[in-house]
């Protein structure tokens, strides 16, 4: 698990506390204002707010955590607890196309290792690394809830299921050529156009 890039380590170096507050776009600030009153306990809004911050800042940086903590009047460490527990919050910058390969039992039995090895070789990357051109990155994650269509992976916010080496070839080739929008925007509440021919997942 140590090589998957999921584990967040605290640096032993002195880090200055964030003094300058990060300001997100008006749309994001507005969305945050809508979300917070939906929860009787403001603490419950940590997850949707982390999504907003990730949308805007591309990953969960120290500034992003402080932004969420400030919005909810929580100690920042409690936001870190949530952000580091889940794999869908990126604790460091990822590539433009980020593969999350499920490696839990059903996928593992159906060939998750093949998917990982394919990506490793194809992009010459280890889990957690980003390719030199900033296009590709991948990591191994736990169950994404799509066991019936194993093996599978999630690229940005879209599921790609029943994977095989040939299918991966097609996907990678088409993504490089077409540069599709595979992101779900929490702020606009909509999923990108996706990749034609592949089912568009409804992740919210």
């Amino acid at each position, binding site marked *: 698990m140590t090589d998957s890039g999921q584990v*967040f380590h*605290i640096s032993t170096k002195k880090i200055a506390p964030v003094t300058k507050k990060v300001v997100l776009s008006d749309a994001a600030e507005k969305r945050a204002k809508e979300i917070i009153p939906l929860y009787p306990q403001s603490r419950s809004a940590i997850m949707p707010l982390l999504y907003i911050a990730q949308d805007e800042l591309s990953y969960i940086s120290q500034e992003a955590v402080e932004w969420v903590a400030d919005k909810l009047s929580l*100690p920042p460490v409690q936001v870190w607890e949530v952000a*580091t527990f889940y794999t869908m919050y990126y604790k460091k910058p990822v590539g433009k196309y980020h593969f999350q390969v499920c490696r839990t039992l059903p996928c593992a039995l159906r060939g998750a290792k093949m998917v990982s090895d394919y990506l490793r070789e194809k992009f010459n990357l280890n889990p957690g690394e980003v390719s030199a051109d900033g296009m590709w990155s991948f990591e191994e994650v736990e169950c994404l809830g799509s066991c019936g269509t194993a093996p599978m992976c999630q690229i940005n916010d879209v599921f790609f299921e029943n994977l095989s080496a040939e299918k991966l070839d097609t996907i990678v080739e088409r993504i490089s050529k077409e540069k599709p929008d595979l992101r779900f925007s929490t702020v606009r509440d909509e999923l990108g156009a996706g990749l034609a021919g592949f089912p568009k997942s409804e992740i919210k």
Partner: protein
Amino acid sequence: MSDPVTPKAPEVVNLTIDGKAVSVPKGTNLIEAAKVAGVEVPHYCYHPHLSVAGNCRMCQVSVKGQPKMTIACNTNAAEGMEVATHETSKDVADSQAAVLEFILINHPLDCTVCDQAGHCKLQDYHFEYNARPSRFLEDKVHKVKALPLGPNVMLDGERCIMCTRCIRFCDEVTKTSELGMLNRGDQSVIAVSPGRELNNALSGSVVDLCPVGALTHRKWRFNTRIWFTKQTESICPGCSTGCNVKVAERDGQVTLVKARRNDAVNKEWLCDEGRYGFERFLPKSRITHAVSNKGGAISNSNISEAINALKGQLKTVTVLASPELLVEEYYLLRQLMLRASSVSRAVIAYRGRTLSQVEEILVSPDYAANFRGAQLTGLVGESPEQEYQEVLGKIRRKEIENILILGDRAIDSRDMDEALIEGLKAAKVSVALISDASSPLAAAASYVVPGRGILEKSGLLLNRALRLQYAQHVVPLVDGTTPEWRFLAMLADAANIKIVSGDLKAMSDRDLTRWYLATDPVLAPQGLTIQTIKNGGVPLEAKGLSVGQSKTDVSQGASPSVA
């Protein structure tokens, strides 16, 4: 007069634990109920003064009628419950052994270099409840080692068993929430938020709470093995809260200060200033010989020279006493002064302080551990700080001729200025019983006699809430030193003042305390013994006593004698 409202008797439930019938108040959990039955249920994450987390799974017991084992910390005693612990149920014992095996899977087993070894719950419980070699052949997970969480506390992530006591302490007690648990599963690690640190007034308490060696004091890491130290149960003299502590000492050095549980005083917390500042009560360089200082000519002296110089001046002497002398010493001093004259005067170095929000949880707003003791014996009045400052003013104006200084802290270091030292030098006779050679008092007084600090004496302290507690001497005694009370007894003898019918000078600390408890007109009817006081202290207010009471009683002419 209206009847005081009688508190409703708490509802009691009856249950059996390992066949033993016990009755406990409703709402008591099974760990506490088992304690009543004399069974210790092993546990890591449970702490009586923190919320129940229930994550270590060590405290499992079996309850008749329930298909699975249950955790004792999160199960309240109920009427008719039949509980079996590891002592009678093999299933429970096996289950606890399995839990320990799981907890130890990723534990580095570095006891040989761990400061907690010797007082570690993992070691103790493994020996008691598992004691099997590990069957784990795979690689262990590696985590952060030696990560400073703040100025006082160091984290070893691999030793941590994720009991979350430290997190709950910061969330629930100090309410500062610096700590959290990052990542998940076997990668979980205790952490502070990047850019912040664990830096509150009680931060050292998380080390006491840590059942393993994951959190250690940065000040005392790799200092000594705990079994080479002498551990003494005593009272912290830092302020008048009187926190109960356990002090480990080796070769005259304090090597660890731990909070000792006393629910009525400090629960199990201790402030950083008291804990890490414990050594300030030890002299930097020890005075071992009496010296006299006549007009700048310093020569060797002895204690009788100082006493001879002082005995004729008792009517006019002004006594400056440390705020952490023993109650017995204040009592002796008061008796001596009552019998010598009414002109002489005594003050203690009371200094008030303002507290931060976190400090207010535990710390008292003063640096005077035993000012209540001085008030109890009638030595000082309601406003000790004002009296003290008055006397300092007089010394600065060179209005005082004869001065007796009892203890290093009889003059607070913040009050020590040029004018004061000049005033002391100008006095006709000034005798100082101090232990620190680097103190300015050592050069200013005309006679310096090696005294004993609060860590070198055993006796009574009265805390701010009027709880009488017993402090035991922590560091080994140094030859040639005289405790303040013995000096006072010798002074009384030399001046032909009879305080007691026996010979006080020949007594030990314990004899003195016994004598005092049997003699003080207020305390004597209570029939207190050192043993009863040691066991959590005795609240005087609950016994209908308040400070200032002895003042009248003593001046009405009680004639105390040795019991």
